């Protein structure tokens, strides 16, 4: 079985001066796995990938890639992997074809193998139109595709991709993720990202790192289950507007609905959701094992309320991610200068901010839950 382990990291640590970028990271990736490497900026994703590609050495611990130790056999390690660094740094003055040929030459690909591989790689990465163009004239999306093509040119058993989709447009992203699934069947792929939707779309397994430590590792469902809470949204009609009221008697008052819902067994927490004046909306949180929906339906039917909405949200990966890593984020914001120690990850800050806005609400919720529990 052991030769099925393609990437093996044991107690990997890396310090930059007094800053501990990685703190005893342990994980294994098997053949055919697509692993999403997640974490906030500066968590140590790029550092880990750089160690695995032998660009930097760990301060302590061991790592093996395809059975080769990163200390003892860096050349064999690099031969067995394709690597796309963050932001796809390419030689701007070369044309796409020149660049691919350069990469193939350094990997000692014979000319006819190169022609065959180049053909398929160009097709897969959609580069046919730009083959003769200089890379400096290409958009970031295309540069990223060239970077990916370069990583695939020698048909490696292992792919390590550092934020491969950060500059792609949504269509390209979807295409790329599809392709990743396709090639990931007999290959090992490790990709870092902070876009969680991508992980959900393409990876069966995720490793979440935060402040240099692994905070979660496993299949997505398991990680989701880890937080162990489920959220329900219930809304009950408050006023029918111009239409006639279809419920029994008068529409209920807000306090009436609130107390009734709070009395339902299994409700851990009840929250008010903002709505217009036509409905009362509440958010219920329960343990995972109990399903509240039948009880809520029963309650509404017995009272004769008009139930406008009732649904259950399994906690999204995003929520899990936030709850696992939010402590560090907050610490970073307070300490300030400390955060620039992870400078290699700072570039991505812009993308992250964009991701963050729709999650503002959910963060508040978490803070509330945290204080509730304590």
């Amino acid at each position, binding site marked *: 079985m052991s030769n099925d382990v393609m990437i093996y990291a044991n107690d990997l640590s890396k310090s*930059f001066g007094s800053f501990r970028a990685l703190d005893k990271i342990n994980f294994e990736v098997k053949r055919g796995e697509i692993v999403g490497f997640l974490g906030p900026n500066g968590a140590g994703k790029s550092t880990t990938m750089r160690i695995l590609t032998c660009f*930097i*050495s760990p301060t302590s611990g061991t790592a093996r890639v395809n059975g080769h130790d990163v200390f003892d056999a860096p050349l064999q390690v*690099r031969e067995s992997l394709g690597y796309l660094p963050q932001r796809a*740094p390419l030689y701007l003055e070369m044309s796409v074809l020149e660049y691919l040929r350069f990469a193939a*030459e350094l990997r000692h690909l014979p000319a006819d193998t190169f022609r065959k591989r180049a053909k398929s790689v160009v097709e897969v990465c959609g580069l046919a139109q730009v083959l003769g163009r200089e890379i400096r004239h290409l958009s970031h999306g295309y540069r990223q595709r060239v970077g990916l093509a370069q990583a695939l040119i020698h048909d490696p058993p292992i792919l390590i991709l550092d934020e491969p989709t950060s500059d792609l447009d949504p269509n390209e992203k979807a295409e790329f993720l599809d392709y990743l699934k396709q090639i990931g069947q007999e290959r090992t792929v490790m990709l870092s990202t902070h876009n969680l939707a991508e992980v959900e779309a393409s990876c069966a397994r995720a490793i979440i790192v935060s402040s240099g430590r692994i905070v979660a590792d496993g299949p997505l469902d398991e990680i989701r289950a880890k937080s162990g809470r489920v959220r329900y949204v219930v809304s009950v009609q408050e006023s029918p507007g111009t239409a006639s009221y279809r419920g029994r008697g008068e529409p209920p008052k807000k306090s009436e609905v609130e107390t009734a819902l709070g009395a339902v067994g299994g409700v851990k927490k009840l929250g008010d959701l903002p709505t217009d004046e036509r409905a009362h909306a509440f958010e219920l949180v329960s343990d995972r094992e109990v399903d509240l929906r039948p009880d809520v339906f029963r309650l509404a039917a017995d009272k004769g309320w008009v139930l406008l909405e009732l649904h259950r949200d399994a906690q999204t990966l995003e929520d899990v991610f936030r709850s696992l890593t939010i402590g560090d984020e907050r610490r970073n914001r307070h300490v300030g200068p400390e955060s620039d120690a992870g400078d290699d990850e700072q570039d991505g800050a812009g993308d992250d901010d964009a991701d963050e806005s729709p999650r503002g609400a959910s963060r508040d919720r978490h803070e509330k839950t945290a204080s509730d529990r304590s």
Partner: protein
Amino acid sequence: MRNIWIIARRDLRAQFNSPVAYVVIGGTLFLVGVLVFLIPHVGNAFMGNFWELDRATMDQMFLYLPPLMCLFVVPAVTMRAIAAEKGSGTLELLITMPVRDSDVILGKFFACLAVVLILLAATLLYPIAMFVWPWHLGPLDWPTVWAGYLGCLLFSSAAVAVGMMLSSLTESDVIAFFMTSATLSILYAIGWMASIIPGGLGDVVEFLSFQTRYQSFARGLIDTRAVIYFLSIATVCILVSFRSLESRKWS
């Protein structure tokens, strides 16, 4: 070996893809031409131009080439070698290919040296034009010229290695340019000061100076001490840049 060649070829092509190599070669040819043929004898600063000297010799060319190399040829050629790759991140992609760090350093060294060699080859135009075709101004002592070129070659190997080393220590090509220019100029110019510094210090300065080492070649003398001196400088600087590239792993 093969990786060194592939990297050197790519770097050389990159040099000629940017205007730098053309400006450096063209500019140097032009400046050498002006200095050798047009600038007249003025006080002690200039030894008199080609016509004033009135001898079949290329001494003036070999006098002016090294200072020009120190001031801007070598700094311009080597400034981007490692510094720019570090700055733009392309180094990461290059190093994570299955290549040794030493392949990268040597490949870049030979690429830079090749640009300088192309420049040196281009300066052959002057002796050829004056003494072979279209003009025959007299019997040129070719062995002296070849000795001069050997001196230039050894001199520029050392200078390129110094430039590479300084380029590997920084991430900015501008800083690399000025550091290299200053370092090489000082190494060259201390030769003039050697005579006015008294005692042992003067000897040390004379020992270190590129200029005193180079001068014997310009006179047609192949001095083994100078050969070893330049090759040692080149080797040490290449080793230092190799270590400096490797140090990224541990920082």
